[in-house]
């Protein structure tokens, strides 16, 4: 394994370089081949690694070269394979490959075709590096790199000012989180003298640092996770990121990049387990975000925005699980979410494609019979997301709620349950508004409604199957395949928290039933409003709750709040500095220096009269001075 593991990230990197350099003149319309082949290669190698690492007790660290070696600061450029990174590798390369194939059809004819694939390959490289890193510094490198690719890809349609602004927003908000992350990494080095996972976790388990330090590190790392995984209050960039092409939204903002935060916390499970206070914060923020985003999702009109807020909400669920110490379950939900959320995004992209670019759900409707492949796969994804038995989402979401209950956080459980209801509601609201009822789009678009090409449908089908069957990987308790697979990685953390495996008891069954009922209620409610009485009920509720509706529709005014405070502060502050400081002080100093020299010159110039006699006098004076000095002093 040591021989080939470095190829996994390098193949997409090579694809990036080749596509970027040669894309404009040579490859053009065939730009998708090399990245797709590269991703296939990465997937194959990831599978191989996955099989080889099964059951290993210790991670395999492959050092590629000596990266930083400055005195006591030793950081190697090394990759680490353990069960956790193997799972992530499969998710990234597997879902990534499907999305690449989908993009062939979706992005067909776009002028920047090669640029798209180049950046997507670069992203694949970055994400794989992030997941394969064996130390926090390399992780940080991958972290920043995926942020950069996100910026590129969100602003892919760079002619549109909204897209450019969205890219900028994503990058800046992430920067806020990364600031905390960076501080956390530094704190780790200061406390433990190393940045390698193996070294750090050993020391933490042995109790090398005090509670305060551990809580500080954990919270700082979580700050980074909040930024990257769009948790409240750093969630504001994700809905805007929908300006990017739909495959980008699927890959980066659903399946992989946004899950980097979850991965970070899971990877640092030992640290978080040793700092229960931080764990509580993680769980609280995750829970709050889950319901907060779900509520906003109810009122969204744009199909992609609904999915964006859904992603934020589901990420909240993952952090909820992490907060309860259910590391493997959070990863399990990450995997299933990757399947059905990517499916939903790609399906939405298919809908948009068939409608010639329409994204407003008010203008959709009646599409079920006309684009059946898209319809059925999307429904599969929606069922999985809503948590309906026996789809993937049911198992993973239920695992989360179960572990939260078992952890004793009943409030979180209740909130999570309500959020599940809302999730089912807005998901099927989306389905019903899009596919059912009368067609609400204009004549022209209606004529051109067509099913998407094979390259787009096949990935949808594959993902639908995965959403249906993927759940069986994570059956609760001792039955869970994924839990036992990941067990060696999380054993130290579980040991610290005192968690053991457990069998299924009656309460677990009861909880499962409850969450299933709640989800079905949500679907029924959506059915009622949007299918049975689509004309009056939505308006009825809208009128009833008008003020609340306004607030929710405007995303609780979080963006406006930021604009009025942080942004305003920064912009005004910069302007002030520009005028006062830069213009007066700095420019003044520079001009002042010039003026001084000019003045000195003006003073001294009369000395040069052009007359030799005057110069001679000067010499004579000099002689006098020197002689006096030498003789008399």
């Amino acid at each position: 394994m040591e021989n080939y593991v470095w190829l996994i990230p390098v193949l997409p990197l090579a694809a990036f370089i080749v596509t970027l350099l040669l894309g404009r003149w040579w490859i053009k319309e065939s730009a998708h081949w090399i990245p797709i082949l590269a991703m296939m290669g990465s997937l194959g190698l990831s599978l191989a690694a996955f099989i080889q690492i099964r059951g290993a007790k210790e991670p395999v660290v492959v050092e590629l070269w000596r990266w930083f070696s400055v005195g006591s600061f030793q950081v190697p450029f090394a990759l680490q394979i353990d069960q956790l990174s193997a799972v992530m590798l499969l998710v990234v390369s597997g879902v990534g490959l499907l999305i690449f194939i989908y993009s062939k059809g979706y992005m067909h004819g776009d002028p920047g075709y090669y640029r798209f694939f180049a950046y997507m390959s670069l992203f694949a490289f970055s994400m794989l590096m992030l997941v394969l890193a064996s130390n926090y510094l390399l992780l940080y490198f991958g972290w920043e790199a995926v942020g950069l690719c996100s910026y590129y890809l969100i602003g892919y349609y760079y002619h549109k000012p909204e897209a450019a602004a969205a890219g900028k927003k994503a990058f800046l908000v992430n920067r806020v989180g990364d600031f905390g992350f960076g501080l956390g990494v530094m704190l780790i080095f200061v406390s433990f003298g190393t940045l390698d996972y193996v070294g750090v976790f050993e020391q933490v388990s042995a109790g090398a640092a005090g509670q305060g330090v551990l809580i500080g590190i954990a919270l700082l790392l979580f700050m980074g996770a909040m930024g990257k995984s769009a948790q409240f209050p750093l969630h504001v960039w994700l809905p805007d990121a929908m300006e990017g092409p739909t495959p980008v939204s699927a890959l980066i903002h659903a399946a992989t990049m946004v899950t980097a935060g979850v991965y970070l916390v899971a990877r640092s499970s030992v640290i978080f387990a040793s700092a229960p206070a931080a764990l509580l914060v993680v769980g609280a923020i995750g829970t709050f975000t889950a319901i907060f985003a779900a509520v906003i999702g109810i009122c969204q009109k744009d199909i992609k925005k609904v999915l964006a807020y859904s992603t934020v909400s589901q990420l909240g669920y993952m952090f909820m699980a992490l907060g309860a110490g259910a590391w493997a379950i959070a990863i399990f939900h990450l995997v299933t979410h990757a399947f059905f959320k990517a499916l939903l995004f790609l399906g939405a992209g298919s809908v948009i494609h068939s409608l010639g670019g329409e994204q407003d759900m008010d203008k959709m409707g009646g599409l079920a019979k006309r684009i059946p492949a898209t319809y059925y796969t999307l429904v599969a994804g929606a069922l999985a997301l809503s948590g309906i038995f026996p789809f993937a989402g049911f198992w993973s979401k239920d695992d989360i709620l179960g572990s939260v209950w078992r952890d004793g956080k009943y409030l979180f459980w209740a909130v999570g349950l309500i959020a599940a209801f809302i999730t089912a509601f807005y998901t099927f609201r989306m389905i019903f508004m899009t596919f059912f009822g009368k067609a609400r789009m204009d004549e022209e678009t209606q004529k051109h409604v067509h099913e998407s090409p094979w390259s787009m449908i096949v990935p949808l089908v594959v993902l639908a199957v995965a959403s249906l069957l993927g759940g069986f990987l994570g059956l609760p308790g001792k039955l869970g395949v994924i839990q036992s697979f990941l067990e060696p990685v999380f054993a130290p953390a579980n040991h610290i928290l005192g968690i053991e495996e457990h069998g299924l008891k009656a309460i677990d069954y009861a909880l499962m039933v409850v969450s299933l009922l709640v989800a079905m209620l949500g679907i029924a409610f959506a059915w009622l409003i949007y299918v049975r009485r689509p004309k009056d009920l939505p308006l009825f509720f809208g009128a009833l709750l008008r003020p609340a509706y306004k607030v929710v529709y405007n995303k609780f005014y979080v963006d406006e709040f930021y604009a009025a405070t942080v942004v305003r502060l920064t912009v005004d502050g910069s302007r002030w500095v520009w005028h006062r400081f830069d213009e007066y002080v700095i420019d003044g100093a520079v001009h002042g220096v010039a003026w001084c020299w000019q003045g000195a010159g003006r003073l001294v110039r009369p000395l040069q009269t052009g007359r030799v006699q005057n110069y001679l006098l000067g010499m004579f004076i000099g002689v006098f001075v020197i002689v006096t000095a030498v003789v008399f002093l």
Partner: protein
Amino acid sequence: MGATPADMPIPVDWYLYLSAALFIVGAAGVLMRRNLFIILFSLELMMNAVNINLVGFSRFHENLVGQNFVLFTMAVAAAEAAVGLAIATALFRNRQTLMVDLFDRMKG
């Protein structure tokens, strides 16, 4: 008034005082007069002052190096006078004046 060789009738520092006086007179002339010729004359005066100095010491130290040196300074003075006059001529041709404070093209 240092130790003077018994056969040197005039004490050596008298030569030096004379030399100093003539040198200063010459210097004053160079610095104060505007006519180029007068300046050249003052320059010759300064050179002669130096010669007196050299001769005095030559006698004081009882060797001939000083006198030989004077010969050379005279030769150089002659050369310098010739070239200086050539320059004066050329200047006069251009500006019709030899007042040195009117030659200030290099001003500033």
